[in-house]
């Protein structure tokens, strides 16, 4: 039996708590992130925000630093799961203090491994606006394939921007970056094995 592998060297995944939702609400409505994230400048009520945070979600975790005091880095989620056709969509977001640090992408890596471990998805998809794609520079291009570019799809900061659709294949993931995570998981199993 493999462990869930939610703990990494730099970041870990833990259950999303009500205080995290309040933090995300403040972040999403902040001047620095408000128009960049999914709300696009809108300010829903806290209740509407919470409902939208959990709409069609299959799994969702807070990304925190592994080292204590386990500071909150961001959130990652899987939604719109299509078990019939073997795919789901994932999302990741970092709070302002950790934008560009690569820590949220590290958390997303743990989460992708968890998704492929827990469900037989063939692939995962993600969306990113072109102005946010730099955040993925910490991810290996081999694992992340652009399968769509919806040109001038969304307004932000005075002009329309492209919306990118990204794909992560199970086979590619498991053959590459997944191996590193599999090795870490095996070490965890060995540590937790009785006797």
């Amino acid at each position, binding site marked *: 039996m493999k462990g869930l592998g939610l703990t990494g060297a730099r970041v870990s995944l833990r259950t999303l708590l009500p205080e995290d939702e309040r933090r995300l609400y403040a972040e999403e409505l902040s001047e620095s992130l408000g128009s960049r994230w999914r709300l696009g400048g809108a300010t829903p009520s806290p209740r509407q925000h919470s409902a939208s945070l959990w709409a069609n979600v299959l799994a969702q975790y807070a990304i925190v630093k592994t080292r204590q005091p386990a500071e909150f880095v961001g959130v990652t989620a899987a939604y719109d799961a299509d078990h019939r056709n073997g795919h789901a969509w994932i999302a990741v977001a970092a709070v302002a203090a950790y934008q560009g640090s690569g820590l949220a992408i590290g958390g997303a890596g743990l989460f992708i491994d968890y998704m492929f471990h827990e469900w037989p998805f*063939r692939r995962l998809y993600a969306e990113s606006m072109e102005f946010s794609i730099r955040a993925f520079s910490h991810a290996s291009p081999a694992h992340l394939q652009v399968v769509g570019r919806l040109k001038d*799809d969304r307004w932000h900061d005075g002009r329309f921007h492209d919306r990118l659709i990204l794909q992560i294949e199970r086979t590619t993931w498991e053959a590459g970056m997944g191996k590193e995570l599999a090795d870490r998981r095996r070490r965890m199993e060995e540590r937790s094995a009785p006797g």
Partner: protein
Amino acid sequence: MGPLYRIASERPEEWARVCHRGVPSPAQFGDRLWAGVLAQFIIELSDGVYEPVGLVSLHSADFANRTAWLELVSFGPGNQDGAYASGLLLLTRYAARSWDFRKLYFETLEFQGSPLIGVPGVEKEAHFREFYYHDGRYWDRMIWAIDNSKFEPESLIS
């Protein structure tokens, strides 16, 4: 709703928006058929009999970014490509006269095609390999965009 439900249950692969994950219950079908819909019309043949051959919908409108999605559902296995093309063009003209959308998106599965593919102003913007399981294998899904600044439905409607 009864006849539409019967048609959808026989050919769910045609009803991507409503039956993407299988045929819903009759009650769910009604809800999903109208969920997020801005305008929706039956395509009838103008032959005096007015036989319904398909359904066109304008849905998931994003007024802030001035985009929306089109959907065409064909009712039968018979070849009504001319009627489907006319239905879609009439809906795009209706949309252009009613709202100021910049772009209209629509999706197709590999085995379906669309009468709008190849029309000036229509471009493929996303291609999902082996996305949808049907008839024993996975098929690709494509997202197409109609750029309303380059698309002229008036000149195409016969």
